[in-house]
C-alpha cells in the first residue's frame, strides 16, 4: 500500500464550488497523475474552511499551508513547486484578514486564533462524504456513550447543565425544550432539524450541513433517545441541493454502519431520519409553518400554544432544533456540560457561528466564544472594512433584526447585550455596512423582503408591511413628508403587536432600529431631500468636475443612455434629465472627475 506523504485538502463548500472548485480539483488530479504522485498524495474534498471570499481554498498537509483563490491555472504551481520541490508558492498564500499565513504561524494567525470551533469543529478538515473520517474525529462516540452509559434523563440533564440555547434565533434553552418534549405523554414522538436557513446573509447552517452532515444526524439520534422519539426529519430548503446530496449520502452511510435504523448498536433503541425539502417559502423556517410543510400542506404558521413540544407533527410531541444547535450536542456529550458552560458568558454559553458578509474583508464563516466584542469579531477576525472606508453599522438577525451603529463596537456578543441595543443575535448573519450605505435604503430592502415573504395570513403583516414599504419608497424618492416618520413608528408598533408569527412580529425591527440610531438620516431625506450616503437615486446627481476632466471620452462611451456630452479633450458634462444614475461612468473615469452629489 502506498503511504501518503501529503494530503491536499480542497474546499468543496458551496461558495468554493460556485467559485470554480470542481475544475481546480480536476486539474490538480491530472497534474498529480502526470507526475505519478496520485498514489502518494491524497486529495480530500472538505466542507467550508471559513474564508469563502478568498476561495477556492487549498491546504497542503502535514505542513498546513493554505492557498487562496486557486484556479485551474495556478493550481499547477502547487503541484510543481510545493509538492515536487517543497517550495511554498508565495504569491498564492492565504492572506486572511491581515498578512499572509505561512507554515509556522498559521495557527497563530488571528483569523484562526480567536476562533473556538465546536459546532464547526470538522469543517474544512474532513471529507463530508466519508463517514470514516467523521468517526476518526470522535464521530458517533457521543451516540455510543449515550446509548450505552446514559439514561435519557441524564442526557437531558447534561444538555440543561451545559446552558446551550437555541441557535435558530429565539435562544430558547435547549435542555428545557428536550425535557418538555420528553414529558409530553404520547406513544409517538418526532425530532425535527430546522435547516430552512432563510435570513439573507446567513449561511452557517448551509456550511455545517455541507461540511459535516453526520454531526447533525448523530445529534438528532441522541435527541431521539432523550425524548423517546422514533423518527427524525431534516427540513432543508430546496435552494441547498449540495447540502441535500451530502445529507442523503450521510444517512445512507449511517444506516450501513448501524448508527440509524432498527436496534442501533445492538440496543433496543430504534431511530431513523428522512429528508424533507422546502420549496422556496421563507416563512417555513418558523417552526409551526415548517411542520405544516412537512405534512405536505401550505407552510403557514399556527397559533402557539400548543407548542411543538406538546402537539407537533401530526399532533404528536415534536422536538425542533436548529442545525447549529444540534451540531453542539456531540461535543457536549463527550466533553461534558461543565466544559461547555466554561466557555462564553453568564447567560450565553458556548460559541456562536457567524456568517460575515457585506463590507468586510474576510467574508465567510467564523465561530467565536459568546461574549467576544463586535470589534474583535469585525476587525481581528473579519479584517475590518475594505478600501479604507469607515464602518457605519452592523446588521444582525436579518429581516427580524436590527442595526448596531459603529459606536457600540465594544459591545459583547451575547443574547442579552444585543437585545439591549435593539438588535438580536438571530441566526448568525452579520452584515457589515460602511459609510457608503444608506440606512433608509437598507431598511427598505429588508421590508421588501418581508413584503415578499409574508404568508398573508394576518392582515397587519400582509398589509401593514406594504404600507410601511410605500412610505419608505416615498421617502427615498424625495417625496417624504414630516409625518411619515411618525407613521412608520406607529405602523411598526401595530404590526409587532398584532401579528401571529415571528415574521410579522419582527418585520418592523429593521425600520425601527435604523430610526432609533439614524433618525437624522431619515430627516435629511424628508426635510432636505438629501441622501447623505448618496445612494437613493432620486436624490442624487452625477456631476463632472471641470478641473479634473481631461476630456478622455471614456465616460461618454460607456453611458448607456447618452447622457454625457463633450468633445475629445474638452470638458464633459452630464445631463441630469437623461442620466439614469447607473453609476457606470464613475467606474471608468480614471481621473476621478466624476462624483455623486446630493441634492
Amino acid at each position: 500500500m502506498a503511504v501518503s506523504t501529503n494530503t491536499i485538502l480542497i474546499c468543496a463548500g458551496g461558495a468554493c464550488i460556485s467559485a470554480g472548485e470542481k475544475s481546480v480539483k480536476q486539474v490538480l488530479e491530472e497534474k498529480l497523475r502526470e507526475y505519478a504522485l496520485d498514489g502518494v498524495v491524497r486529495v480530500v474534498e472538505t466542507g467550508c474552511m471559513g474564508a469563502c471570499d478568498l476561495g477556492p481554498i487549498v491546504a497542503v498537509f502535514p505542513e498546513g499551508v493554505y492557498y487562496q483563490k486557486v484556479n485551474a491555472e495556478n493550481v499547477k504551481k502547487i503541484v510543481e513547486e510545493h509538492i515536487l520541490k517543497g517550495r511554498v508558492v508565495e504569491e498564492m498564500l492565504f492572506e486572511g484578514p491581515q498578512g499572509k499565513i505561512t507554515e509556522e504561524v498559521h495557527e497563530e494567525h488571528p483569523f484562526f486564533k480567536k476562533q473556538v470551533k465546536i459546532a464547526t469543529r470538522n469543517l474544512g478538515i474532513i471529507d463530508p462524504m466519508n463517514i470514516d473520517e467523521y468517526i476518526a474525529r470522535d464521530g458517533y462516540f457521543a451516540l455510543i456513550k449515550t446509548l450505552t452509559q446514559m439514561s435519557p434523563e441524564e442526557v437531558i440533564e447534561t444538555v440543561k447543565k451545559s446552558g446551550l440555547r437555541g441557535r435558530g434565533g429565539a435562544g430558547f434553552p435547549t435542555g428545557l425544550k428536550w425535557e418538555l418534549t420528553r414529558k409530553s405523554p404520547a406513544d409517538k414522538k418526532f425530532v425535527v432539524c430546522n435547516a430552512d436557513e432563510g435570513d439573507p446573509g446567513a449561511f452557517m447552517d448551509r456550511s455545517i450541513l455541507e461540511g459535516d452532515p453526520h454531526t447533525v444526524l448523530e445529534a438528532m439520534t441522541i435527541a431521539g433517545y432523550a425524548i423517546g422519539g422514533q423518527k427524525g426529519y431534516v427540513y432543508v430548503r430546496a435552494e441547498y441541493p449540495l447540502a441535500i446530496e451530502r445529507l442523503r449520502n450521510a444517512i445512507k452511510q449511517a444506516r450501513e454502519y448501524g448508527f440509524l435504523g432498527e436496534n442501533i448498536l445492538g440496543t433496543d433503541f430504534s431511530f431513523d431520519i428522512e429528508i424533507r425539502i422546502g420549496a422556496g417559502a421563507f416563512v417555513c423556517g418558523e417552526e409551526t409553518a415548517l411542520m405544516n410543510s412537512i405534512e405536505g400542506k401550505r407552510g403557514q404558521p399556527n397559533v402557539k400554544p400548543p407548542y411543538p413540544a406538546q402537539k407537533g407533527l401530526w399532533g404528536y410531541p415534536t422536538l425542533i432544533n436548529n442545525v447549529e444547535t444540534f451540531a453542539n450536542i456531540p461535543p457536549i456529550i463527550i466533553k461534558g456540560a461543565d466544559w461547555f458552560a466554561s466557555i462564553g458568558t453568564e447567560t450565553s454559553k458556548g460559541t456562536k457561528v457567524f456568517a460575515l458578509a457585506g463590507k468586510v474583508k474576510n467574508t465567510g464563516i467564523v465561530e467565536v466564544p459568546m461574549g467576544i466584542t463586535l470589534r474583535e469579531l469585525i476587525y481581528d477576525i473579519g479584517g475590518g472594512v475594505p478600501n479604507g472606508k469607515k464602518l457605519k453599522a452592523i446588521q444582525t438577525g436579518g429581516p427580524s433584526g436590527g442595526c448596531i451603529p459603529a459606536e457600540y463596537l465594544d459591545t459583547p456578543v451575547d443574547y442579552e447585550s444585543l437585545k439591549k441595543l435593539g438588535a438580536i443575535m438571530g441566526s448568525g448573519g452579520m452584515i457589515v455596512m460602511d459609510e457608503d450605505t444608506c440606512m433608509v435604503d437598507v431598511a427598505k430592502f429588508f421590508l421588501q423582503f418581508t413584503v415578499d415573504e409574508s404568508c398573508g395570513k394576518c392582515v397587519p403583516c400582509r398589509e401593514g408591511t406594504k404600507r410601511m414599504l410605500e412610505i419608505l419608497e416615498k421617502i427615498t424618492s424625495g417625496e417624504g413628508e414630516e409625518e411619515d416618520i411618525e407613521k412608520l413608528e406607529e405602523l411598526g408598533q401595530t404590526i409587532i403587536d398584532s401579528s401571529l408569527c415571528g415574521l410579522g412580529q419582527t418585520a418592523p425591527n429593521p425600520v425601527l432600529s435604523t430610526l432609533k440610531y439614524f433618525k437624522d438620516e431619515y430627516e435629511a431625506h424628508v426635510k432636505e431631500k438629501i441622501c447623505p450616503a448618496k445612494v437613493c437615486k432620486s436624490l442624487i446627481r452625477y456631476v463632472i468636475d471641470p478641473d479634473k476632466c481631461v476630456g478622455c471620452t471614456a465616460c461618454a462611451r460607456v453611458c448607456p443612455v447618452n447622457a454625457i456630452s463633450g468633445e475629445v479633450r474638452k470638458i464633459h458634462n452630464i445631463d441630469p434629465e437623461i442620466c439614469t444614475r447607473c453609476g457606470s461612468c464613475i467606474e471608468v473615469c480614471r481621473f476621478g472627475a466624476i462624483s455623486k452629489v446630493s441634492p
Partner: protein
Amino acid sequence: MVKVDLDKVKEIVEKVKQETLEEGDILINTLHAIQDYYNNFVPPEAAEEVAKLLNIPVSRVYEVLSFYSMFSIKPRGKYVIRVCKSLPCHVTGGREVMEALKNKLGIEIGETTADGMFTLETTSCLGLCGVAPVIMINDQSFGNLTPEKIDEIIERFRGDENA
C-alpha cells in the same frame, strides 16, 4: 404542449414512496420529482394524477403548488436561472448582474426565452454570500459574478444544447 405520460407519473410517485420510510406526507417531495422530470414545471394533468394516486383532493395539490415559489404550473425553460436579490448580493454588484442577464437573454423577470431554454427568476439569499453576487441555474450555483462572466456562462449553456 407537453404530453403527460400517466404511467411515468405513477412511476415517480412510487419511487418517492419507496424512498420514504412510513406514513408521512410525500406530496411536496413528489411534486419536486415531477417538476424535475418535466423540465421545471408541473403539468396540470400530472398534478391531477398525483392527487388521484395519493388519494387527496386536487385542490390540495394546487394549494401547495401556488404557495411555494419554487413550483410552477406554467412551462418554464430547460434552465431556470435564479438571481439572488438579497442585500449582500445587491451591494456587491447584483444589480449589474441582473441587468446583464436581462440584456443577454432579452427577457424580463418571470419570462422565458422564445427558444424555451431559459427562464429568469429571482430568489432570496442562496447562502453563498461569501462569493456574492450569486445566481443559480437549475441545481448549479455560480459566484463572484460580473456581467462578463454572465456572458460566458450563458454561452456555455447555449452550447450544451447544440452538443
